[in-house]
């Protein structure tokens, strides 16, 4: 009997109709890119943005590292397209309060900041909620130690003028990297990008880092360019020591280019400004969103662990996709690549207008179900619920729905079932069968 993994069934699960309607949660760069692309395909798109403006974290950026265009102009044009598109609805101050149903019959309840509620029935949901940035733990008084996005703003505002901070000219700037406990390349990319601009404006810039994370297209060249322009780079094993010194900050770091430890001199970088990259962290609201959407969270409360089988953009539930910084903070080009991959997934899902389960599907035999909730708790795809069946008689219940009686049994939604068989193996009543 141990060989019997599947049962065969004459009738295949009914195909599920999919309307071309998609809900996108989050109106950052990933959300609006997905919206624009899907809208071009004739899909009705609703963007639920929790804030009052579109653009998300990219609103803090002003310069691309790899091209001369201005980020805000580019973003503004994109937002204009999205807000002007006939088949895109943008809900602002919007939060997802409930998500019921499964692929093809999702029911989303969204509450906007004015307290209005909207019910949507999208065929697919894209989560692009991004992440939050927190000022890095810097010097306690906050003076002369600024975040990377503040430096971007400063540079964007000063344009042709020399750089000034609080009315005082800025002559020397030091970027300190790797003070936050993560391994992402955004900080290096931003620091070198800004260092080049600052140096061009006549500042003396130093970048102090443990590792220069140049694993992005064109970054090594930019790094070279920065060195060519006179930006100083220092690497450390032990974090540099910061102290106030007159009107500036002194960043002290041993000269690691000298091999012998005892011969290393301490380099003191007197800086008008010290720039420390912000910390990127999972949005605390992600937890609540995951509860509502029955999604899994991975390390640090970000969406979804780094499982190779999910090819970046899939979630544990069919019809729900993830992209961008809600999973892992990345540089714009990489986030956009994910956004287009999500577009591809949604297009492929909606292609043909129906979803036909191809994998094996689990099915509960209602009379045998003891309603112990084992399967409901263990299904990794949130595909099982306890539903009311038509006949109250436990022992001869037909497996049809008719919401007005009390007797209940578990039911696997064939649209949401991935056919893994975990529920089959766990059911203490052996009431579930995997049909092929």
């Amino acid at each position, binding site marked *: 009997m141990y060989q019997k993994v599947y049962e065969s069934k004459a009738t295949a699960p009914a195909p599920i109709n999919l309307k071309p309607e998609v809900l996108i949660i989050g109106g950052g760069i990933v959300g609006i890119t997905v919206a624009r692309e899907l809208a071009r*395909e004739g899909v009705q798109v609703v963007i639920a943005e929790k804030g009052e403006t579109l653009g998300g974290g990219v609103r803090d950026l002003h310069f691309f590292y790899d091209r001369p265009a201005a980020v805000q102009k580019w973003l503004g044009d994109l937002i204009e397209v999205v807000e002007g598109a006939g088949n895109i609805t943008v809900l602002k101050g919007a939060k997802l309060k409930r998500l019921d149903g499964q692929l093809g019959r999702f029911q989303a309840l969204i509450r906007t900041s004015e307290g209005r509620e909207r019910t949507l029935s999208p065929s697919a949901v894209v989560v692009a909620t991004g992440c939050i940035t927190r000022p890095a733990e810097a010097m306690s008084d906050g003076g002369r130690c600024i975040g990377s996005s503040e430096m971007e703003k400063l540079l964007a505002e000063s344009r042709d003028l020399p750089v000034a901070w609080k009315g005082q000219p800025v002559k020397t700037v030091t970027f300190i990297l790797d003070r936050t406990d993560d391994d992402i390349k955004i900080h290096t990319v931003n620091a070198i990008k800004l260092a080049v601009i600052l140096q061009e404006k006549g500042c003396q810039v130093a970048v102090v880092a443990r590792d220069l994370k140049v694993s992005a297209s064109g970054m090594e060249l930019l790094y070279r360019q920065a060195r060519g322009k006179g930006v100083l780079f220092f690497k450390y094993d032990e974090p540099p020591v910061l102290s106030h010194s007159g009107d500036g900050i002194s960043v002290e770091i041993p000269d690691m280019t000298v091999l012998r430890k005892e011969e290393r001199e301490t380099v003191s970088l007197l800086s008008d400004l010290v720039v420390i990259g912000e910390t990127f962290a999972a949005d605390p609201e992600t937890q609540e969103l995951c509860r509502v959407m029955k999604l899994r969270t991975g390390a640090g409360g970000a969406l979804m662990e780094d499982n190779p089988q999910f090819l970046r953009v899939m979630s544990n539930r069919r019809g729900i996709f993830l992209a961008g910084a809600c999973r892992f903070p990345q540089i714009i080009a990489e986030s956009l690549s994910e956004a287009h991959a999500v577009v591809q997934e949604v297009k492929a899902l909606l292609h043909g207008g129906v979803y036909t389960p191809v994998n094996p599907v689990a099915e509960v035999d209602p009379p045998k179900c003891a309603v112990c909730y084992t399967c409901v708790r263990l299904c990794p795809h949130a595909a099982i619920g306890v539903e009311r069946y038509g006949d109250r008689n436990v022992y001869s219940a037909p497996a049809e729905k008719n919401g007005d009686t009390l007797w209940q049994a578990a039911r696997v939604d064939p649209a949401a079932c991935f056919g893994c068989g975990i529920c089959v193996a766990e059911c203490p009543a052996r009431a579930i069968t995997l049909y092929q």
Partner: protein
Amino acid sequence: MTDENNHPVLIIGGGISGIVCALELYRLGVPVTLIEKEASLGGLAARFCCKASEACNKCFACVVDKKLKEISEQSQISQLTGAEITGVAGDQGSYKVSLAKAGKVSELEAAAIVVAAGIDPYEASGKGEYGYGVIKNVVTARDLEEMLRFQGKIYRPSDGKLPQNIAFIQCVGSRDESIGNLYCSQVCCAYALRLIRAIRHKYPEVNATFLYMDIQPAGASFHDFLNACREDKGIRFIRSLPSRVYHSPVTEDLRVRLADTERGEVVEEPFDMVVLSVGMVLKKEAKPLANLLGLGLNEEGFLASPAPGNGIFVTGACAGPKDIDRSITHAKSTAALVHNYLNGR
């Protein structure tokens, strides 16, 4: 079989990017022809090994085998192996591509062409100071991958014995002005550390020394993975790229000249085996192909993205270094763009 002359999309290159792009376009109902120069699909990544230790280390090599199986079961996608592009005529939306297969020349029409030409591992003998190709026990990480994949073990090429003490030299062929490769290959830190962890899991007695310039991150779980590596007593991190590898022709042992930052001196340290973490260069055959298609190279020497609108797309690592994970994402996104293009958007 559908009419082979009537496929609107031609994908050149049957590595992971080409395969994924073909599968994705097929999902959208677009007929595809996939062309591979070698006798079988899979490309470079299909020869990598699983780098799991106690748990999966997210190297994505298993996904390649999975996709390969998926496409082999997909008779609707026309797959031409052992075929080479010899000429391209026509333009925008209507290309005539000549190809040679087993000496026979045929012609295909295509509305769009996706170039997924892939990359070559850097030819390690180009860095003569490390002695690859001359010293037996200097191998590339790619050699090591194949040892693990096809033989399930690692050994010193000279005597077949298990090396006890291995040096991994990073950035071989990457970030290197002397050979003109001014880019980071983006994958080598992660694959080398994953190989080390996999080897240390199988052979806890083997020690590894990781010689590097800067550690480059790779993905969401890399931070925890790197911390685990740093805590592993059998892995020594030294921020120094060696200047030379010497060997004793008698014992076949190696000496690596490096600046030991811990001890603060330049030393010549003995190792049983040296593994060169080779970077990526654009596939040799991609350059003539680029010429045929009128594609240029970018500053890093990879294929530049063509101007939108002429129906030629570049995807995967031939557009710039990418790991398997990001190649797949890129190929997927390319499929969406190709579909847009075909629909006149």
